[in-house]
């Protein structure tokens, strides 16, 4: 089957509303992935596993029994960069050892849960170098997310590639996030800006000026005197910040891509995403022979929790239906 070349999974982050409302347990979330015929499981341990940095044998047994029961595969753990925040207010600058200790926890969780890679937010090259031997020892790849408003060719990604080359390690990779291909500011977030006080006219005008190719300095000079509410400038900034990447740039890093975040905000009833055009990107990565996982990452819910019940499971189902539609034709 053609669509078996690219594998589909879900970052359980997508089900955060159901999980937080206690409509679904972690096991229910895994079942929801399996129910679509998908297999990849990506998890934020700090969201869905109690005392996640001290995993019990009983939990790990449950985890693997769920994988077996639902024919799913542990793929990724999402880590953060808390070393930047843990001691900030106390005025303490963490030593390299302290930062390494914070980051090792994610590698440990990934190793115990059988995940192949950690989504990491490490942007300090000394910390990154210090983490490599540990990642190698635990057989877990450290992967940097390429997230909007960033782009594939950003310096930080080149820095990572340099470290990879200099050290000769195979344990550094990338996770491009489909949010970098957003072609307009998602209406889900813009409507939230409006509920927070921005005006619809400013939003529309910002889209017009950006389409005319205005730079940020021009945008700022024009809109600042025209903004009537505190939310207006935020809306202008959000519109301007959507600068879609060229999918072909992926070819430069494709050998090091360990997986994708299938970021989306709003799946429409015609099975298209409101602000990201998936087809051209899927074609590029399909043609390049990518065989890893695209894990859906639904983020629209976070921006509409004040308007009604968020349906993460349904949104992800539509997202998978869309990706299958596109992949089956490639």
């Amino acid at each position, binding site marked *: 089957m053609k669509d078996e070349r690219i594998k589909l999974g879900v970052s359980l982050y997508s089900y955060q509303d159901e999980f937080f409302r206690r409509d679904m347990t972690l096991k229910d979330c895994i079942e929801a992935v399996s129910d679509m015929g998908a297999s990849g499981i990506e998890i934020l341990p700090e969201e869905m596993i109690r005392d996640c940095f001290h995993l019990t044998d009983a939990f790990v047994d449950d985890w693997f029994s769920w994988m077996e029961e639902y024919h799913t595969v542990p793929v990724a753990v999402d880590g953060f*960069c808390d070393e930047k*925040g*843990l001691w*900030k207010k*106390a005025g303490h600058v963490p030593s390299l050892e302290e930062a390494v200790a914070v980051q090792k926890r994610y590698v440990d969780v990934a190793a115990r849960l059988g995940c192949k890679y950690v989504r990491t*937010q490490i942007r300090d090259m000394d910390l990154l170098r210090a983490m490599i031997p540990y990642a190698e020892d635990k057989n877990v790849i450290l992967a940097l997310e390429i997230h909007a408003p960033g782009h594939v060719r950003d310096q930080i990604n080149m820095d990572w590639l340099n470290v990879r080359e200099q050290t000769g390690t195979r344990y550094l990779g990338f996770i491009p996030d489909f949010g970098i291909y957003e072609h307009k500011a998602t209406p889900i977030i813009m409507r939230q800006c409006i509920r927070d006080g921005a005006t619809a006219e400013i939003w529309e005008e910002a889209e017009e000026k950006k389409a005319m190719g205005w730079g940020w300095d021009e945008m700022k000079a024009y809109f600042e005197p025209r903004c009537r509410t505190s939310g207006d400038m935020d809306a202008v900034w959000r519109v301007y910040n959507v600068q879609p990447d060229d999918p072909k740039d992926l070819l430069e890093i494709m050998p090091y891509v360990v997986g994708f975040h299938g970021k989306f905000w709003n799946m429409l009833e015609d099975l298209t995403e409101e602000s990201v055009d998936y087809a051209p990107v899927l074609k590029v990565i399909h043609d390049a022979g990518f065989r890893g996982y695209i894990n859906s990452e639904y983020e629209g819910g976070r921006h509409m*929790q*004040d308007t009604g*019940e968020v349906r993460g499971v349904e949104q992800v189902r539509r997202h998978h239906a869309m990706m299958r539609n596109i992949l089956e034709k490639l």
Partner: protein
Amino acid sequence: MPEFGNSVLCEQGFRNVSEEGRTTGFQLRVRISYYRGIALSILDGYDIVVDGRKFAPEDVSFSLDGKTFIDTADFGKHPEIRWEYGDKAYLHVKCPGGLERGIHDVKVTQRIAVPYLPFSTAFYQEKRLTIVQ
């Protein structure tokens, strides 16, 4: 930004608190308005408004177990205390005499220093909650 329609501010646990027979303030119970558990030192603080009355940050204290309270100004001193996602913490607010029995408009804004963002993020929730005692 507004967050989580229902579950951050809890109906249960909204009550007056007394010390040595005198009502010294009131209590709220809250969950983390974010998508994961965090160390307390990542929290910046809480802004609490009841019926339009704003309470000063120094009048708000925080507890995970309802017994040991820390000043919200001291969050930075506790990187070792982890607040698990979904657990209900206690906020105590100094307010001599407490709040009257009945319905109150409560707005709680949680400020958090998300480590990958350059600014403090404020999530708020507004609810009408009832004081029974």
